[in-house]
C-alpha cells in the first residue's frame, strides 16, 4: 500500500493540545453506569481516571441495620449476574460465626449452582466483550440463549431467575424440585456443543485477534501487587484459584484444571474465560454424578445471634475473589459488614492498562476486566 501523501500544515496560531473526553456514564445494561475521564493526545490515551459511584446503594451500612438473614437478598443485588455465588460467600462468612455443619447434599447443590453461575457469567461476559468490540448483538444473543436455559434452572430451584436468594446459613432454602437434576444434566451435556460453536465463531476471528492481542497488557507483577484476582489474574500468568487454594465447600473432591494465560492481554483474558467454562462443565458433571440424597439444611439456630467474633468468608467468584468480612457483637445484627468486591479491585488497574493505548482500545480493555457496577459501587 502506498503511504498517503499529505503535508502537515504548519502555521502560526494553530496549536495542538490534549483533549479531555468524558466517556460515559452509560446505560446499565452494558456494564453499568461508569464514566472514564480520558485525556487524549490524538487517539492515544495519556491519562485516564475512572469515575464511579452512580449506582451506590449504601449496601454495607444497610446490612449493619438488619438481621443477618435479612441481608441475604441484598447480596443478590451486588453482582446481579451471579447472585448464587454472592449468596455463597455471605453464607460461608456467616457459617463461620456459628459453626453450622452443612449437609452433604446441600454442599453438592451449592457447587452445582456456583458452577452454573460461572457459566452464566462467563458466557454473557464474552458476549458483552465482543459487543464492546463492535460485534453488536449476534454473539451476545447466542450467549443469552444458553444463559436462558440456566436461568430457567435457577427459577425452578429458587423461584427467581436472577435474584435467587437461595442459600441459607447451614444449607439451602429448599430442595430442588423433582426432575431438576436430570434437566441440569441435559443442559450441561448440551453446553459443550454450544461452546464448540462459540469458539469457532470467535476465537479465530481475525478481527478479534487483531483487536485484542497485545492490547491492555497487565504484567504479572502488577497484577499480584494490585490484588487482582480471578480470571484476570490467571490471564496474567498466575495460576491462583481459591477453589484450589482454599478448597472451600467440597471443591477438593473434584478434578479440574485451572487455565491461565501468558501475555496478560485482552485475548488471554477472553480465552481464560472460554477455557474456564470447560472446566466448570467438568465439575458440574462430577457433581451431578455424585450428588447424594438427604437433608439440605443443617442444624441452624432458630435465632441467628452469634457471639462476638470477626470472620472473613471468601470464594472464587466468577469475577474473582469475593469476600465478606463480618464483625459480630452478640446482637442479631452485624456490627461491621464489609464486602471485598472483585470487580472493584480489578478495576483499579484500568489506568495502567489503558495508558499508551488507543482510545478505541480503552473500551475493549474495560470490557475485558469484567465489571458489574452493582458490585463496584455497592
Amino acid at each position: 500500500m502506498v503511504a498517503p501523501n499529505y503535508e502537515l500544515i504548519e502555521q502560526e496560531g494553530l496549536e495542538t493540545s490534549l483533549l479531555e473526553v468524558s466517556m460515559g456514564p452509560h446505560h446499565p445494561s452494558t456494564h453499568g453506569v461508569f464514566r472514564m475521564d480520558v485525556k487524549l493526545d490524538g487517539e492515544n490515551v495519556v491519562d485516564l481516571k475512572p469515575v464511579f459511584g452512580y449506582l451506590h446503594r449504601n449496601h454495607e451500612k444497610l446490612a449493619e441495620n438488619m438481621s443477618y438473614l435479612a441481608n441475604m437478598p441484598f447480596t443478590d443485588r451486588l453482582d446481579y449476574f451471579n447472585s448464587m455465588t454472592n449468596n455463597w460467600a455471605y453464607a460461608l462468612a456467616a457459617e463461620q460465626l456459628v459453626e453450622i455443619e452443612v449437609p452433604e447434599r446441600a454442599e453438592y447443590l451449592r457447587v452445582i449452582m456456583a458452577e452454573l453461575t460461572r457459566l452464566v457469567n462467563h458466557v454473557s461476559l464474552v458476549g458483552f466483550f465482543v459487543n464492546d468490540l463492535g460485534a453488536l448483538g449476534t454473539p451476545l444473543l447466542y450467549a443469552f440463549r444458553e444463559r436462558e436455559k440456566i436461568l430457567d434452572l435457577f427459577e425452578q430451584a429458587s423461584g427467581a431467575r436472577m435474584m435467587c436468594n437461595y442459600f441459607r446459613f447451614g444449607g439451602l432454602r429448599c430442595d430442588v424440585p423433582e426432575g431438576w437434576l436430570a434437566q441440569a444434566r441435559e443442559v450441561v451435556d448440551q453446553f459443550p456443543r454450544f461452546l464448540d460453536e462459540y469458539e469457532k465463531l470467535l476465537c479465530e476471528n481475525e478481527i478479534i485477534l487483531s483487536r485484542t492481542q497485545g492490547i491492555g497488557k497487565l504484567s504479572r507483577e502488577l497484577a499480584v501487587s494490585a490484588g487482582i484476582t480471578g480470571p484476570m489474574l490467571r490471564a496474567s500468568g498466575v495460576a491462583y484459584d481459591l477453589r484450589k487454594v482454599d478448597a472451600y465447600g467440597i471443591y477438593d473432591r473434584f478434578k479440574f484444571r485451572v487455565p491461565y494465560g501468558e501475555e496478560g492481554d485482552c485475548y488471554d483474558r477472553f480465552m481464560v474465560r472460554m477455557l474456564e467454562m470447560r472446566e466448570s462443565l467438568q465439575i458440574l458433571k462430577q457433581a451431578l454424578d455424585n450428588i447424594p440424597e438427604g437433608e439440605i439444611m443443617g442444624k441452624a439456630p432458630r435465632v441467628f445471634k452469634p457471639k462476638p467474633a470477626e470472620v472473613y468468608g471468601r470464594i472464587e467468584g466468577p469475577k474473582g475473589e469475593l469476600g465478606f468480612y463480618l464483625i459480630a457483637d452478640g446482637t442479631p445484627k452485624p456490627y461491621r459488614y464489609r464486602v471485598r468486591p472483585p470487580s472493584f479491585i480489578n478495576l483499579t488497574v484500568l489506568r495502567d492498562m489503558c495508558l499508551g493505548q488507543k482510545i478505541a482500545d480503552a473500551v475493549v480493555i474495560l470490557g475485558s476486566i469484567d465489571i458489574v457496577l452493582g458490585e463496584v459501587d455497592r
Partner: protein
Amino acid sequence: MSFPGGGIFSGMAVTLRNFVGSYFDPDRLTTNDYSWRPVGKLPQSAGEYPKEGGEQLSDTTTVTNYSRNFPMLLHDGGVSPMDTIRCVACQICERECPPQCIYIEKAYDENGKSIKSPEKFDIDVSVCMSCQICVEVCPFDAIVMNSQFELSSPDRFGGLLLRRDDLLKSNDYYHRIHPEEAAARDQRMAEEKAAKEAKKKATAEAAKKKAEEKARAEAEAKAQEESPGNEETS
C-alpha cells in the same frame, strides 16, 4: 485457519447455520420454547406476553409454577375470608422485611382487646423486592408468594400499595399456582398439627394420670386415716 480471513468465514458459517437452523431447530431460537420442562406440571410454557391462549392460567396470569413475585395472605376458605385468615398480626414479617415494605395494624374488638387478626396489612409492591424472607419467618404459614405479575397501574401511589383485601387469597388458589410447594406446606402443617395434638393429648393424659394418682394417693391416705378408727371399733 490457514488462509487469511478464514476465521471470519468459519464464524460466518456459524451465523448462517444459526440463521437457517432457527427455522427448524427450536434449540437455535433465541427465545426458547421451554419444551424441556417436565410434562404434566402446569403451566407447561411461560408463553409470550401478552397471554397465549390456554398456556397460562386464565385467572392468575402466572408465569410458571416455580416463579415468585409478590407476597399474598392465605385464608382457608369460608364465607368471609377474614373468618379464616391465618395471619394473627404478630408483626414478625414487618420487622424482618429487608426493604421494610409491610405495614400492619392489629385489630381490636369493642372492648379494646386484641383479636389476633390484622386490621390493616399493606404491602407496597413498588418497594417489595420479592425476596421471600416474610414467607420464611412466618410461624403461621399465613404469607406466601404469589406469582401474579400484571400489577401495573396508572396510579403511582395507591395502585402499587396492596391492601389486606387485595392480598387475601384462598389456599385453593395457592394450590393452583404453586401445586408442589402448597402440597408440601400443607403436609408439613398437618404433621405439625398432628404432633401438637399428640403432645397435647400426651400432656392431657399425663395430667389425667397425675390427677388419678393424686386421687388414689388421697384415697389411700384417707383409708389409712380411717383404718385406725376401724381397728378401734373392732
